[in-house]
């Protein structure tokens, strides 16, 4: 069984590459529709890859919200779409979509798969309204909304509180994630939050759902993002350095639609996905030069660092201190400013940033000599996804 698992995993290893990336301006306030933002980013990603829209034969749009396959055919004139898929995993969608796209190009079903997000999270519907569109939120809507628990900030706060009570994690640890992420955002020209943030300002920001304060929460912003996944042997001929997908996996937790009923609030899909992705890649946490960690909340980053094996369970708080996760540290994270400070496009900006880091195209936030990097997705009450990318040419 183990040998069989291994051969299955290796069937995908480095067979696919992130060949193009594109994003719109990240703002709070736009007149464009979510679909227009998504298409603008898609055209940029296609151009970045050195392809024409005619070359796209698979689309995985973020759902719900934004365009569907029909919109991409109608707008981009796709002549022969071979794959239309949704990955309904909330914040884990974009990185999980890398897995589906990799399977599609590795098997020859598709040549170039477009993954894209368009979001009017500031100028359109806000989070508590948007979530009503998710069938996965039906349980929360029935059992938790009536008692005053709606938003992810509230639903995830109980896990954060438990981590604090069990392991002594503090809001100082949370603040470190917010402050370092902001420092990184300031180096990036395309961000919503571009002013320095201090620990004191974090601690003084208003309480949202204890222990989460305002600056523990990701942004409600507008923007679009897109990436192209191509077969590695084809991507080699495209414009940019070849960034291959070494390992990729998605994972689903117990009690997937209700955090409340999950046996361990601090174990979620990523705990299952991480060993599979590392196993496929043939590397471990020590080989990771840079990590883009889905940061819907500061604490979520701390929790994921544990589940990924960068530190032991309960040690995520101290792990993020003393410059370790800042540029120049052992494990620079969220070098673009993340969802906390750059913009919220459901983490596709994390995939884009990792690709840029490995292309050595990350400007002032460049991690020197970055060869191997990791990106995660997290969402939909605890689904997880992780990809390990490598600069292979």
């Amino acid at each position, binding site marked *: 069984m183990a040998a069989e698992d291994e051969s299955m995993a290796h069937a995908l290893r480095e067979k696919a590459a992130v060949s193009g990336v594109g994003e719109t301006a990240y703002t709070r306030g736009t007149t464009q529709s979510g679909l227009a933002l998504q298409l603008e980013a898609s055209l940029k990603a296609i151009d970045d890859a050195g392809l024409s829209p005619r070359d796209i034969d698979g689309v995985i749009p973020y759902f719900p919200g934004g365009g569907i396959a029909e919109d991409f055919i109608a707008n981009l004139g796709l002549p022969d779409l071979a794959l239309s898929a949704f990955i309904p995993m909330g914040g884990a969608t974009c990185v999980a979509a890398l897995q589906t796209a990799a399977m599609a190009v590795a098997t020859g079903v598709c040549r170039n798969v477009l993954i894209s997000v368009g979001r009017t999270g500031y100028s359109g519907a806000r989070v508590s309204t948007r979530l009503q569109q998710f069938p996965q939120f039906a349980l929360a809507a029935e059992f938790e909304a*009536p008692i005053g*628990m709606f938003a992810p900030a509230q639903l995830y706060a109980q896990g954060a509180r438990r981590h604090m009570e069990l392991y002594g994690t503090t809001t100082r640890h949370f603040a470190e994630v917010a402050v370092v992420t902001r420092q990184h955002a300031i180096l990036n020209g395309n961000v919503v939050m571009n002013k320095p943030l201090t620990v004191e300002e974090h601690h003084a920001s208003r309480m949202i*759902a*204890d222990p989460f304060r305002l600056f523990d929460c990701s942004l409600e912003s507008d923007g679009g993002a897109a990436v192209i996944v191509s077969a590695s042997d084809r991507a080699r001929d495209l414009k940019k350095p070849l960034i291959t997908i070494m390992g990729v996996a998605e994972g689903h937790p117990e009690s997937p639609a*209700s955090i409340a009923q999950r046996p361990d609030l601090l174990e979620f899909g990523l705990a299952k996905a991480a060993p599979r992705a590392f196993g496929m890649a043939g590397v471990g946490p020590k080989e990771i030069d840079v990590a883009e960690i889905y940061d819907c909340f500061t604490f979520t980053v701390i929790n994921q660092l544990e589940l990924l094996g960068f530190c032991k369970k309960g040690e995520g708080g101290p792990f993020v201190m003393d410059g370790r996760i800042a540029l120049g540290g052992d494990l620079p994270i969220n070098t673009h400013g993340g969802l906390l400070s750059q913009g919220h496009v459901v983490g596709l900006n994390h995939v884009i940033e990792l690709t840029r880091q490995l292309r050595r195209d990350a400007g002032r936030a460049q991690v020197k000599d970055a060869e191997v990097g990791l990106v995660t997705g997290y969402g939909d009450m605890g689904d997880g996804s992780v990809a390990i990318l490598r600069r292979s040419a």
Partner: protein
Amino acid sequence: MSAAPTSTPPAPERPMPTPTRESQPYWDGLREGRFMLQHCAKCGKARHYPRPVCPHCFSMESTWREAPPAGRIHSWTVCHHPFNFFFKSMAPYVVALVDMEAGVRVNAPLRGMAEDALKIGAPVRLAFEPVTKDVTLPYFVAA
């Protein structure tokens, strides 16, 4: 604009549960002041939230039995920002996630306990608050 008669805007509505064929007995129980749980008719395990199949033995037969209202705090949050306007006047409010004696969890407001008294393992008891003639919602008090 002409002087409009002063009127209070309509009060925001509380989000209400929409019971399903699976969950109706739970809500009926709350309305009667009883904490009813779905149990597998074959292996006897309680499950919450209600669903058609037992994930332990895959039986589709289930029965509903009253369970004890006692439990212990597993974790909690204090909600300050009202994501829904109905809750604005109540904020801040504590929501406790409670390990019930029957082996499932219930998430509900916790009343009458100071924030600094909250701790994992603190004993609490489920209580019932009728909010309409059809719907009763759970809350917790210190045991």
